[in-house]
């Protein structure tokens, strides 16, 4: 009982620590540096402690200090409760969704079975979609409660965009569910041992659809019309300052990590290395004894999983700094007239193949 509790707390702390302690601050720096490299610039590199600049890694720290000590502003006529609540509502779902994403398989260490997922739900994918929809509320509330026309427009745009793409996103994943026959993310991950059985090879169209819809859900460029600077100042967070404003960005970054986690679990072979099976790794680590080798295997799997996540984050950042913003009507057309029919056809063909096999 106590051991179960310790295990659960350790896993929660690990996931929370990796997300809030590593990804949230580092991604701000990564975005800056990657945009600098892609635009042939040097990028932030002057903030120093005792002369050490650490290639600009201290800039997130200085940004944080500045934002914490900046004036916290609530506009006149705003709904104070909802104005304060909105950033929290948009940050929390991004972190909670990671609870059902497995970051490793199941291991037997010292006679104890360890399942590397915080909450091994039978309906993991449904949980993901439930909380992805909740994130919409944060945005809409922020836009509505600010008592500002630009914020309101941004909130409405966000609501329309996120709801439209949720439909196509839900349908794009049904092919994967049919192929693997499970809603449980740990089972789907465990089935992708063979390189050619990864979701990306069985469902290539589903992968592209899901990635596009996920970026649209995350409201990042080229789908950033809810905060389009050229049209509506800063969109739904126009009236937010200091830490509340940066919480929307943290939510965006963490959502990006979570999306990468789900994509890796469903399409990119979860914690498995290509062409190197777990048994092979286990025999490779055989020198460390039975328990030591399993612990090393666990570490290797976790490292593989997060390596793939980092690759997916790099990929999304590259898309973000490459493509210009879509127009509003183009986004709606893409969502309803292109993505939705393609995902329906994808379901039909997948069903046919599964039936005839």
């Amino acid at each position, binding site marked *: 009982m106590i051991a179960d509790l310790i295990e659960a707390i350790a896993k929660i702390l690990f996931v929370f620590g990796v997300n809030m302690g590593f990804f949230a601050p580092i991604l701000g720096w990564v975005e*800056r540096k990657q945009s*600098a490299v892609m*635009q*042939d*610039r*040097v*990028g*932030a*590199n*002057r*903030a120093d402690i005792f002369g050490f600049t650490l290639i600009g890694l*201290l*800039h997130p*720290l*200085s*940004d*944080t*200090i*500045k*934002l914490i*000590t*900046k*004036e*916290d*502003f609530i506009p006149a006529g705003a709904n104070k409760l909802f104005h304060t609540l909105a950033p929290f509502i948009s940050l929390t779902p991004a972190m909670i969704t990671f609870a059902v994403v497995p970051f490793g398989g199941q291991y037997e260490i010292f006679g104890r079975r360890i399942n590397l997922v915080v909450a091994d739900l039978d309906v993991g994918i449904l949980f993901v979609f439930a909380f992805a929809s909740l994130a919409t509320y944060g945005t809409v509330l922020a836009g509505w409660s600010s008592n500002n026309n630009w914020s309101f427009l941004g909130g409405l745009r966000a609501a329309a965009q996120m709801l439209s793409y949720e439909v196509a996103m839900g349908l794009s994943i049904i092919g994967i569910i049919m192929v693997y026959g499970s809603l449980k993310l740990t089972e789907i991950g465990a089935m992708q041992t063979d390189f050619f059985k990864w979701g990306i090879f069985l469902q290539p169209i589903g992968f592209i659809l899901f990635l596009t819809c996920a970026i649209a859900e995350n409201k990042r460029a080229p789908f950033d019309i809810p905060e389009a*600077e050229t049209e509506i*100042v*800063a969109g739904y*967070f*126009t*009236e*937010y*300052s*200091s830490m509340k*404003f940066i919480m929307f960005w943290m939510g965006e970054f963490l959502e990006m990590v979570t999306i990468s986690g789900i994509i890796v679990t469903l399409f990119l072979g979860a914690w498995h290395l290509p062409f190197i099976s777990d048994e092979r790794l286990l025999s490779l680590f055989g020198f460390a004894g039975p328990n030591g080798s399993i612990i090393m295997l666990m570490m290797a799997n976790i490292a593989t999983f997060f390596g793939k996540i980092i690759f997916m984050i790099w990929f999304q950042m590259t898309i973000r700094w490459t493509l210009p913003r879509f127009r509003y009507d183009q986004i709606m057309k893409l969502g309803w007239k292109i993505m939705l029919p393609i995902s329906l056809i994808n379901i039909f063909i997948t069903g046919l193949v599964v039936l005839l096999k």
Partner: protein
Amino acid sequence: MGITEDRGQRTEEEGLEQVLGNSVLLTKLDEIIGWGRKYSFFLYPFITACCGMEFMSLAGPRYDLDRFGSALPRFSPRQADLLMVVGTISHKQAPILVKVYNQMTEPKWVFSFGVCATSGGFYDNYATVQGIDTLIPVDVYVPGCPPRPEMVIDGLLRLQQKVAKERWSDWPRGEAPVTKKI
């Protein structure tokens, strides 16, 4: 080019500083906060005229303002720290500038970019504001028509030095002095 040092300094000390004075605790805290602020200016580009071209080249690859941590433009004044007034301010434009300044959240700094913003420049006529410091407090003046990017970077570094020396009691500075008259 010049920098105003004494604006907004209060004579009597308030709050914690009254109790603790210039003790190590507060001066170290001020130093850390100043360090954070000086490397993290979020710009509000208030660009009205041809100096904007020079501003673009500053943000671009050759001069790259991001090196100093001040690349991120925020078009909402609530999120901006540094008001870059780039170009000529006409009397029609003046109330907008004052409004934007008042909407910015504290702490905020103002950068006068180019000779027109600094003193009206050669637009010595009834239509142009003769220097934005008749409207809002200014921290750094960088004249020039337009100023060379090196001058602007020098001005930014001077502003960083000034921000690093600021005390907690220098804030808030409140709204612009001319707000009531407009």
